[in-house]
């Protein structure tokens, strides 16, 4: 009987010690981990879009509740003015959902850049949407309040050769982002004041 009690006590103490240690370490690293994930998954696209900004957009970020989900917005400060945000929309490509980071200038409602963050398109064909700068550059300067389309659908975006589905998916994603922007513009404008 004593033996069983000893076993139980030792295991319980050990487990609670381990649980406590892990909780402490998890609490200590949580912020850092979130930052790292943003840097490595979304960082390249964000930095591309907000090229030339004087701050670190991954540090200067805020969240807005949009219905049930919380969306992250990354602030870019240009010439001392915080007037640009980058945020993510979702489009459906050839190989599944694609995450698209879109940067919008809130003063004139224009898209200043677009980048693909996550995708599972065919390497070398659809993946050009992420790797070939020519394609995303076409989105620069478009109005962020109108839906965008590829040329075959009556829009003004040149599709990537051999990857129409991907190109269309990117346009859908950008349109999705513009809708989010239209919906949340008041909150964005309000929140962004904090970074001035």
């Amino acid at each position: 009987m004593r033996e069983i009690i000893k076993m139980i006590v030792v295991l319980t103490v050990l487990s609670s010690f381990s649980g406590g240690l892990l909780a402490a370490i998890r609490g200590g690293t949580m912020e850092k981990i979130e930052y790292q994930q943003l840097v490595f998954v979304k960082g390249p696209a964000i930095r591309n879009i907000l090229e030339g900004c004087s701050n670190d957009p991954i540090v200067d970020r805020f969240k807005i509740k949009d219905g049930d989900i919380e969306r992250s917005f990354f602030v870019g400060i240009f010439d001392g003015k915080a007037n640009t945000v980058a945020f993510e929309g979702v489009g459906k490509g050839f190989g599944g959902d694609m995450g698209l980071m879109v940067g919008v200038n809130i003063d004139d409602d224009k898209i200043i850049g677009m980048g693909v963050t996550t995708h599972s398109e065919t390497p070398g064909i659809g993946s050009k949407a992420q790797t070939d700068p020519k394609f995303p550059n076409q989105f620069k300067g478009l109005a962020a309040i109108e839906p965008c389309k590829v040329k075959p659908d009556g829009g003004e975006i040149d599709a990537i050769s051999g990857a129409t589905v991907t190109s269309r998916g990117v346009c859908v994603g950008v349109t999705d982002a513009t809708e989010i922007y239209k919906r949340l513009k008041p909150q964005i404008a309000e929140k962004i004041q904090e970074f001035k």
Partner: protein
Amino acid sequence: MISNKELQIAYGLAIILLVVGVLSYAAFSAKAPDQPVRLMFKCVAGKIFFDHKTHTVESGYGISCSDCHHNLEEGETDPQPCGECHEPESQDEDVLSRTDAFHTQCIGCHKEEAGPEKCELCHVM
């Protein structure tokens, strides 16, 4: 149980054939003919096996050099390989990338004449 004679045969075989092998690799390295017979274009969508000879000879399709190699129009004499100017990722706005150049060249002609038009009839694994 290996006799000396067997060993000698093996040594002899190894040395003679090594010399023959090295010599034939060194002296008879396979040179590409002046005019390619067949070409293999490599790309992501699957390699393309292009029978150059059948496209050019009279008994084949009898296409003249300058029909495809458009550098000849500018007065040059040697047809240049397509990849010479049309690079996979073209930086120059005026020069088509390799994919676009081949797609326009091949598909256009295949549609006018009677070539295969579906992707998988040229792009094989």
